[in-house]
């Protein structure tokens, strides 16, 4: 019995460690004065480091189902978790100064961030509709609170309210869809659901009806058109640090979420969901890219750009092949890296009492700080998908999967929308390099953030010159994890 418990607990030991540490941090933080908050910060970073060590240390080849199949431990989950720790940790480094300047560098922020991280970990490892839902709610509730953390800001409160209401609606849709799938198949286990559908015993109408709700719920969470309305308001309204948290690591969890539900659970319904995803993807790429052009606020612009990127990410799923899922994973990883850099840059240029969130705030950056401008140039060209940056390979892999699946027209449509997208990324480069600066206020950057920004920007370039390893990692992870379920 004891060893049975141990085999169950081993794969979730990182989650358990994280939970213990969050509780400890919450208590310890009460005893710390604001001036000593750096201690809490270091503790959080150490917790993330500890989680990484545990995840690496408990890694076992193959796929392990624990807790009666509620949780799965496979290569994909381990890799995604490691990347999640990394991006949360990067997020914390980027945001430290920004939050300190605004009096938001508090224990609550860090505890909530860790709770959100745990939600993502649960989502990544879920193998059961309920676990998936639990993870999603844990993540979402933590994020709602984080967005509302700046209590005296009306915009942030409004954003939190919108996020909460629409998020709750999406959760409701998702849950409703799951209940229908449960009704049709009699199970909540992803593999059991998949088998029940494949056997043909389940009521097809009910299945498709449930599927529609599930896909709608997913689209809400991803921010795909036509369920995207919350994205611009939340990205714009939340303090930039919170926007960065929403726009980075959760995308990895979202990828895991979509692939667990649609691929592991509902693969037999692929002909139905791939059609829906095509519409979502095209709508997202079109609306995201076109609307982004009209924005003057850079956070809002990135919100629309996120919508477009999520459309591209969904394209990878449409092919229904392992290559396609691998390409989506690669896209998610690359997107998170670029998004961290871009929001990091906004925060780097902000200072006390000044939000650098207008497009015009980037004017003449090349004259104020050539190095930062060059990093932003790399990030922007990467987002636009121009080689030799890694963003190109993300698009390339997805397009390859789409063409392989025979949807050449879809690939052509996708590149045309990328062309439109290139315009507004290019505009940032234009503002930085071609225009004169509006202010000559010196840019004060801590050595930790400037080092991280350098690593981030050059990382985009280095991964673009040698993308092979990351590509293989994503492909192998998806191959070993998603195939074995069938």
């Amino acid at each position, binding site marked *: 019995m004891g060893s049975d418990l141990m085999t169950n607990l081993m794969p979730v030991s990182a989650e358990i460690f994280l939970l213990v540490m969050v509780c400890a941090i919450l208590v310890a933080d009460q005893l710390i004065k604001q001036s000593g908050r750096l201690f809490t910060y270091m503790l959080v970073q150490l917790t993330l480091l500890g989680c990484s060590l545990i995840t690496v240390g408990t890694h076992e080849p193959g796929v392990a189902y624990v807790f009666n199949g509620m949780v799965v431990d496979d290569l994909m989950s381990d890799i995604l978790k490691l990347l999640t720790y990394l991006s949360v940790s990067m997020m914390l480094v980027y945001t430290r100064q920004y939050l300190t300047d605004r009096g938001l560098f508090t224990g609550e922020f860090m505890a909530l961030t860790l709770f959100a991280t745990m939600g993502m970990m649960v989502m990544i490892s879920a193998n059961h509709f309920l676990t998936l839902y639990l993870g999603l709610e844990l993540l979402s509730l933590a994020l709602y609170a984080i967005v509302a953390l700046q209590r005296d800001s009306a915009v942030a409160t409004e954003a939190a309210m919108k996020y909460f209401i629409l998020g709750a609606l999406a959760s409701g849709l998702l849950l409703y869809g799951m209940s229908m799938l449960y009704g049709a198949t009699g199970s909540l286990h992803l593999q059991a659901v998949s088998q029940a559908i494949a056997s043909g015993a389940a009521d097809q109408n009910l299945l498709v009806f449930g599927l529609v709700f599930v896909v709608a719920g997913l689209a809400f969470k991803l921010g795909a058109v036509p369920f995207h309305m919350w994205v611009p308001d939340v990205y714009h309204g939340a303090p930039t640090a919170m926007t960065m948290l929403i726009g980075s690591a959760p995308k990895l969890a979202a990828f895991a979420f979509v692939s667990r539900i649609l691929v592991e659970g509902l693969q037999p319904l692929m002909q139905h969901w791939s059609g829906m995803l095509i519409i979502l993807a095209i709508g997202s790429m079109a609306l995201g890219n076109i609307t982004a052009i009209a924005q003057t606020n850079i956070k809002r612009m990135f919100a629309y750009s996120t919508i477009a990127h999520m459309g591209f990410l969904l394209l990878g799923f449409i092919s229904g092949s392992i290559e396609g899922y691998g390409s989506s994973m690669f896209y998610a990883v690359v997107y998170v890296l670029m998004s961290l850099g871009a929001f990091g840059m906004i925060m780097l240029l902000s200072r006390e009492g000044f939000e650098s969130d207008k497009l015009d705030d980037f004017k003449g950056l090349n004259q104020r700080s050539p190095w930062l401008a060059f990093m932003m*140039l790399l990030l922007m060209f990467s987002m636009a998908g121009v080689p030799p940056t890694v963003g190109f390979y993300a698009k390339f892999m997805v397009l390859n999967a789409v063409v392989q699946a025979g949807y050449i027209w879809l690939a052509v449509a996708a590149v045309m929308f990328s062309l439109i997208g290139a315009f507004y990324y290019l505009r940032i480069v234009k503002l930085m390099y071609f225009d004169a600066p509006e202010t000559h206020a010196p840019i004060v950057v801590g050595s930790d953030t400037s080092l991280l920004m350098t690593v981030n920007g050059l990382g985009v370039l280095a991964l673009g010159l040698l993308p092979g390893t990351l590509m293989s990692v994503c492909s192998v992870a998806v191959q070993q994890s998603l195939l074995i379920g069938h």
Partner: protein
Amino acid sequence: MIFGFPVISVAIWLPIIFGILVLATGDDKNAPLARMIALVGSVLGFLVTIPLYTGFMLDTAEMQFVERHQWIPRFNIEYFLGVDGISVLFILLTAFFTPLVVVAGWKVIEKRVAQYMASFLIMSGIMIGVFAALDAILFYVFWEAMLIPMFLIIGVWGGANRVYAAVKFFLYTLLGSLLMLVALIYLYNQSGGSFSILDFHQTLIPMSAQILIFIAFFFAFAVKVPMFPVHTWLPDAHVEAPTGGSVVLAAIMLKVGAYGFLRFSMPIAPDASHELAGVMIALSLIAVVYIGLVALTQTDMKKLVAYSSISHMGFVTLGFFIFNAYGMEGALLQMISHGFVSGALFLCIGVLYDRMHSRNIADYGGVVNTMPVFAAFFMLFAMANSGLPGTSGFVGEFIVILGAVKANFWYAFAAASTLIFGAAYTLWMYKRVIFGAVANSHVAELTDLTWREIAIFTVLAITVLGMGLYPLPFSEIMHTSVNEFLVHVARSKLPM
């Protein structure tokens, strides 16, 4: 490779590394150092390409100096470089122009010198990569990467309307490139999982797909050439670019598009190329005749030479699509010659612009009185642009016209009209700018060429005359490859 020495890789990466070194010199306090490093880097960059010419074997159409390594095993993408008789001269041309551009910008560029010099060095390496890449994705990476420095060059150091021109240039080119990317991915799946361009050449493709592939490539390459009707970005970009940018655009970047037709469109989709040859010839002739007439009406010198470039590049695409040895070789010679001549003309206009800050023909007149040496050089290049026998401009045009006569008399007739229009617009501009009485006090104050400018023009003048009087060193190197190429494109690639 010769004796295990990766010549092409060095030719690509040496200028790029020097470019990064130049960037490292930082702001304009260290401008003299940046200039020196840039000059050393560009001269070394040219010297290392010379083995490509001296070591080139004339009797084979196979790829030479091949370097082939795994790059992205997941998709079987390779770091695969090599040259044949078609591409080798363009690599030399690219490396040849970089030191000239560096010297031409020596004094004129005063703000952000390091970034300016670095952009050109890095771009030079990337363009050599475009000509040497034999893996489609490697090609695509170089192809797109080329846009970034050019975008900055036009946008940062360009004229009044530079931002519009830079963005237009970038988006126009990106449109074509992205369609090409889809075509490349399709070919990858058709060829059984290889991105090697040489494998693409052997892949059988049905007619309908060939046509679509041809159209996708057409957008990518025709925009770059540029062919009528997608040429409209060129006058804007040229006019707004700084002198060095115009030179690189005209001398090399336009050749990249034409080169793409030879490396991709025609050998990969030969049946579609034959099918659509009529359209291509028509577009080429429109460019030659109509754009030639447009050039006649220009009041801005740079615009005039830009339109003249489009017209001359029409000759090149005409030569390709009449599918005979004369046309092909003539077109290649024309590309090389146009590189020298248009580069030289833009440098001439740059010389005037640096002194007068005007490109308007009407602002000049009687320049010969104050700048006699300059007038002599300008004369030579203007003559070459109009295709005077004895200059390089004559060789290519003449051979293309010979080839066109073989294909269809009327093609040749229309093409030959350029000998008249070309002479008309170039010499008329020359007359208005150089001859006559001294037009105004600004012209009266002009100073003649400095030794630096004389050095640049002497090198170019020798090349233009040399190629015009003795073109054999240029034509013999491409001979075997061109014949092999024509055999290849004559073979149908439709699946049985």
